[in-house]
């Protein structure tokens, strides 16, 4: 019986190893992306003439990025603005992650986000006279409904005809952009305005809870993490979603209805992305113009991948991306590095994530998978479109 403590440490080690197997890949990807970013900064110094070469510029840029994101020393306002940038990414990331969990690749978060934004504005205008206690829920519901419809369409198309959701959601993104522009310039436009703009959301605006601009949407995003996790892991519906994602044949065998699941899941994806759009207009913008530019829906895909489709992972991934977005302007001002470097960093993180097998080989991150499973993993990865089969 002397084996018991040994067994316990072995158990502790295996838990640590499991945690490591989940977070190792994202962390390594982030680190590699920072290195690539540094190389790009140094390279740009060489090709841009008339400047003294500063080997420490990457370090200065990253420090400025950090300062912009949280403040040095950490201060309330930069932290709040990071959280404000994070909130829509959390919801968008959850939207994409929820799809991944059931084996669906929702590239349409962008369109669903836009529909959610315009839906929330439309609902807010419809109840403009009402007090906040009525107006906010109505506007939020309007955003969620509009997003859900934009998720329902590819869902029903796939269920009825097998049309692949990657194709339909991409196309619906374009439809959403045009529809959005038309609504802003047409039905919802403020008459006589010099350029297309909607009225203010008025009482439907999220109240500010903390610091400069720290609105109710932060809590909404946090609550959504809990609700999605609860839905996935505590309900029978979540079990069906996860089964369909992990093994569609087994889901059919178990009597789950894959077509219904696809439609409901895609609608929930749309609802979450729509909630993200609603949060952005009700919390920050308060109205939309036809030049309402956002890439939240696309960034959400990267967030979901980095978060390994896990709701809590999505939260952390969104925080990272939100911090980078929020810190980018200070980096541009004080280190002279264009804010677009953040896009480069995001894209590079994603590339490293997608190159999972390469990274795993380079850093011998085997995770919990044995080599025997490897070929199966590859096909599964390829088929489900989710490179991080955890």
């Amino acid at each position, binding site marked *: 019986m002397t084996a018991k403590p040994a067994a316990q440490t072995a158990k502790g080690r295996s838990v640590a190893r499991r945690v490591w197997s989940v977070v190792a890949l994202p962390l390594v990807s982030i680190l590699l992306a920072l290195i690539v970013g540094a190389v790009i900064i140094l390279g740009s110094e060489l090709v841009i003439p008339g400047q003294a070469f500063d080997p420490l510029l990457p370090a200065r840029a990253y420090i400025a990025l950090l300062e912009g994101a949280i403040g040095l020393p950490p201060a309330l306002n930069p932290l709040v603005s990071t959280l404000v940038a994070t909130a829509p990414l959390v919801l968008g990331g959850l939207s994409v992650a929820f799809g991944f969990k059931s084996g669906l690749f929702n590239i349409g978060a962008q369109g669903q986000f836009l529909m959610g934004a315009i839906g929330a504005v439309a609902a807010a205008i419809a109840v403009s006279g009402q007090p906040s206690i009525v107006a906010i829920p109505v506007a939020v519901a309007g955003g969620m409904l509009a997003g859900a419809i934009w998720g329902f369409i590819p869902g029903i198309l796939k269920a009825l005809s097998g049309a692949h959701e990657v194709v339909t959601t991409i196309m619906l993104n374009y439809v959403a952009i045009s529809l959005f522009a038309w609504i802003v310039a047409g039905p919802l436009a403020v008459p006589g305005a010099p350029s297309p703009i909607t009225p203010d959301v008025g009482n439907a605006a999220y109240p500010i809870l903390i610091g400069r601009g720290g609105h109710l949407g932060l809590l909404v995003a946090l609550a959504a993490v809990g609700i999605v996790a609860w839905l996935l892991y505590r309900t029978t519906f979540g079990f069906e979603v996860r089964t369909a994602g*992990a093994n569609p*044949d087994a889901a*059919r065998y178990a009597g789950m209805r894959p077509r219904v699941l696809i439609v409901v899941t895609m609608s929930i994806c749309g609802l979450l992305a729509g909630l993200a759009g609603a949060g952005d207009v009700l919390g920050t913008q308060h109205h939309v113009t036809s030049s309402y530019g956002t890439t939240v829906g696309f960034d959400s895909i990267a967030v979901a991948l980095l978060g390994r489709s896990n709701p809590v992972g999505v939260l952390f991934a969104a925080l990272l991306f939100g911090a980078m977005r929020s810190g980018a302007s200070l980096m541009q001002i004080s280190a002279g590095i264009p804010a677009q470097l953040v896009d480069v960093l995001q894209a590079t993180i994603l590339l490293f994530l997608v190159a999972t097998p390469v990274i795993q080989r380079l850093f011998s991150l085997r995770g919990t998978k044995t080599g025997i499973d490897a070929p199966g993993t590859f096909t599964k990865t390829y088929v489900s479109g989710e490179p991080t089969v955890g």
Partner: protein
Amino acid sequence: MTTESPSVPSPAPALEMRGITKRYPGVVANDHIDLDVRPGEIHALLGENGAGKTTLMNILYGLARPDEGEILLDGTPVRISGPSDAIARGISMVHQHFMLVPVLTVAENILLGEETMAGPVFIDQNEARKRIRELGKRFHFEIDPDAKVGTLSVGWQQRVEILKALYRQAQILVLDEPTAVLTPQETEEIFAVLRRLAAEGHSIVFISHKLYEVLEIADRITVIRRGKVVGTRLPAETNEDDLAELMVGREVQLTVDRGDSHPADVVIRLEGLKVADDRGSEVVRSVDLEVRAGEILGIAGVAGNGQDELVEALVGLRRPTAGKITLDGRDVTGKGPRHMNEAGVAFVPADRQRFGLVLTFDVADNLVLTSYYRSPYARGILRNESAIEAAAKKTVAAFDIRTPSVRARLSTLSGGNQQKVVVGREFDRTLSLLILDQPTRGLDVGSIEFIHRRTIEQRDAGTAILLVSAELDEVLELSDRIAVMYRGRVVAILDGRTADKNEVGLLMATGGRERAPAAALDQAST
């Protein structure tokens, strides 16, 4: 220390594994295993699931690294860094779970991996096709190199795996359960192939749980139990009982005492049932069958003669194109899996990893895969974790599923224990019809004994049982009646107690004496 056989003069072994030890957290999978295989020898490796055979072979194939011990090829110590290294050294493996890409053709699958080997930049596909056809002809399984592997039956996929190894001109061939899905005739053909390969000087490691097969084909037999070599035997000096005892560590009853059956009312009746496969061609062509409560109807047939599709239609996974299915007097034609499940139909699928299980889920979740939505496993829309866990613990104990805990990931269990999870889930309730499709494929004698005993118990409890198995012995041993399927039709129904193995085998291969054997050939490639 050495397990030298007394009677055979020993040429230098083509492969020698010395003191191989591999530890995983909590288990010693291989404990100082010695194994030597001589040129031209067929060496059988016998052992229960989880005994460590697969680990040993993964070490040989470079998929796992031993903690201790060394590998010698032709007397030279080598370090095998991975599968491609193993292949380059002339070691080829036919896996228990096929490692084929379903969307690629036979030729593409066989060439898979070749492109990374030294050689020309472009692969001559036509040349490859020609070679595949030649190999197929030489070893008696003519196969269309352009057929998509995903559309092939399990039996044909197995042959692709074997062809792949032959194509690579392996010197040392490792076959993991190669005959699991073959008929006796096909097994004989494969054995002839293996003997020819051995005569040409190839060394063959033959992994199997089938004692009689091992006795028939092997030159020497090494038995492994719980990671250790427990004995090496020459076939002439041993018998099935001796091997089974060596393997399991206790006396094993090799044949179940099935007792008498007491068939009662008809539970399921098929009338003129027609079913199409994924490509739309009719593979079940008007089948009439009935199974009574308290009897086992065995369906014998070569893989790919419509059994899989028939079974899928019965459990609601596939819509029949014509005909009628009546369950307990009610028409259930075209009903879905949920309906059939609730009507008391349980199904142990042939491809357990595809249909029966979710490998990334834990044991408990797999045990409620078909009942997760019902009380007590669900309260409204909420999962009842404590009920799920409690039920899982009961089933794990009742069916002797060896797992560290009910929350262990299913992929960490051995094949036999994975199958016990399926069996435990499907057997553990009151049933009217139990459909078993290859229930013991790839299992060891201990697990087979267990599942057979449970099946007989279910029958005696009044369940109607439909057994589909490519294992003719299993069909003969368990069935009260035997239906032989050939090209989508039931060509004969025989009494299970009096049926003769050769007669059934012939019916399986030719569809009946009145049909000329040559007629089977045009079917071979479909």
